[in-house]
């Protein structure tokens, strides 16, 4: 049993992280928040890097990798708060023309009855007739509502959402720790206080438990494993972002700080299909199967 990242998987993760640091740094994030539009250049760059074609067979022009690699890439996307209908486009690669190389932006009606990035999409999967725009809580995820949704949710979409949430959980823990090491009150860094330490430790514990669950689900591709991964990753991201905001104190409550963007994105992802009630029911059913 070698339940650890392989050399190739580390290299892939580092490559995606570097690409995103180059193409979507803090400044780009800020600019995107001020003028929310999908960056087609970035989308094509992701396509060229194989982000969307990662799991397509090489014979079909894809990279020929599997769910574990996709999970690592989407974890990085989550860390960087990368905007756009990433999962819908990734899942459409090989079916919708241009999706694999990032020429086409694909949105999808989610099982929860929401559509992300409908206005920017070239192709919409599912029936989006009569979609009503919401004023989205997340400035970087335009949302439409389409009745009750209802279509069965692809387990891969549930897992990739969990991967993005895991990325957020790790990132907000880092942000909180950075702040706690540098921000001084009462003559010392606030990270020296147990109350702050324990908030940060809780964030790491939730993130690491979620990580084991998400990576294992990527290896087994089992429905129940995926449901468990999603539950824990949603929890790690949402609670982690809240605790990160708390560690930042008053600054964390301002628009200038990056923290609210992580929390809002985590909230949006937590509403996607395969969310908590559904996962809990699936995991309960497993107990009596």
């Amino acid at each position, binding site marked *: 049993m070698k339940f*650890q990242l392989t050399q190739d998987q580390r290299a892939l993760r580092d490559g995606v992280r570097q690409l995103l640091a180059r193409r979507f740094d803090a400044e780009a994030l800020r600019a995107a928040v001020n003028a929310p539009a999908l960056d087609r250049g970035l989308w094509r760059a992701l396509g060229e890097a194989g982000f969307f074609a990662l799991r397509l067979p090489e014979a079909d022009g894809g990279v020929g990798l599997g769910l574990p690699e996709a999970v690592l890439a989407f974890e990085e996307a989550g860390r960087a708060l990368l905007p756009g209908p990433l999962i819908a486009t990734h899942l459409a690669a090989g079916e919708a023309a241009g999706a694999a190389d990032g020429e086409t932006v694909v949105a999808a009606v989610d099982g929860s009855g929401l559509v992300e990035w409908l206005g920017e999409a070239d192709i919409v999967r599912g029936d989006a007739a009569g979609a009503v725009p919401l004023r989205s809580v997340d400035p970087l995820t335009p949302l439409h509502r389409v009745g009750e949704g209802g279509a069965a949710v692809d387990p891969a979409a549930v897992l990739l959402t969990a991967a993005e949430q895991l990325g957020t959980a790790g990132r907000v823990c880092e942000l909180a720790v950075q702040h706690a090491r540098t921000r001084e009150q009462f003559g010392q860094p606030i990270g020296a206080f147990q109350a702050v330490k324990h908030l940060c*430790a809780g964030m790491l514990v939730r993130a*690491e438990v979620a990580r084991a669950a998400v990576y294992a689900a990527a290896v087994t591709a089992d429905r129940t494993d995926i449901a468990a991964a999603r539950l824990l990753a949603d929890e790690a991201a949402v609670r982690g972002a809240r605790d990160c905001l708390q560690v930042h104190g008053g600054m964390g409550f301002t628009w200038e700080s990056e923290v609210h963007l992580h929390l809002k994105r985590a909230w949006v992802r937590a509403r996607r299909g395969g969310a908590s009630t559904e996962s809990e029911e699936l995991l309960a059913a497993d107990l009596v199967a």
Partner: protein
Amino acid sequence: MDLTYTPEEDEFRARLREWLGKVLPTLPPKPSPDDWPARRAYDLGWQRMLYDAGYAHVHWDASPTVRLIFLEETEKAGAPYVGAGFVGLLHAGPTIAAEGSEEQRARWLPPILRGEEVWCQGFSEPDAGSDLAALRTRARRDGDDYVVSGSKIWTSHAEVADWCELLVRTNPAAPKHRGITWLAMPMDAPGITVRPLRTLAGSAEFAEVFLDEVRIPVANRVGDEDDGWRVTMVTLSFERGTAFVGEVVACRRVLRELAGEARKNGRWDDPVLRRRLGRLNAQLRALWRLTQWNVSEAESGVPGVGSSVFKLRYSQARQELYDTAADVLGPDSLDVDRPWTLDRLSSLSYTIAAGTSQIQQNIVAERILGLPKGR
């Protein structure tokens, strides 16, 4: 990332499973938890069977994955726990193996493996729990002996132990971590008084040990004088990754039993309760995956820091499991004769024993996240 086992590991599992299937039906019934002499005999008898079948060494020199398989399979089969052999097999034994002299290893290790001698742990004191290095039990040198006075607490198996791995202060003038020495104390030495402590679960799980001018030969010292803290730290992380394997397997079984009980008594129809069971399933599955992750990490020689992370979440999940059991049982959960009630009571110790959750959070924050030391 790979969750498959090697052919050798699969073969080990199959052989062990077959052996367990053969021997477990021949075991006598488990003794009452309060009958310590019977528990000692039962636990040592099981260790002897493991020894005869070639499994006694598994905690000492098998790979982390093989230990994982051993613990998983024995728990699944309902085999006895390591029980009274715990300190000898998992702590004192490995300490002596790593730090003891040739003579000491020959004297103490074979009886541990063969299930002939029981060890207990004389570390904690009334004023040195989470701050273990604050221990005050004093040892002064007198010829070829140390003369030891003081008291120890939370000492499991003290009433039936043959030996105690004892930490004593040999140099009060040295900084507190540097004046400590590791001694093997024979439990029949004059001057030792053992007083059982009754837990809130009603059972006598551990004891206080009072030491009044107890003479321990200098030859029983493992490592150098005043070097006992380092000697102890060498082996405190001995069980890296596998400390709770059997328990996680057991919790997952209990959760299934709970779901079955809820189906029988109708509580399953309550969606709030049902979903709580589902969420517990997620947590326990994830803890199993984290165990596999930590074991793989130990196998690849990467320094592991995951044990605090694991313990924090596991101790909490275990308490949630038995709190949920109480909601499944309803009024019956107040009946101490129901095993889940006793388990609920004993689960309260998990966030305290072996480093409280608060200490574990400090460890995670300072050693893993690099936050500054403070108070």
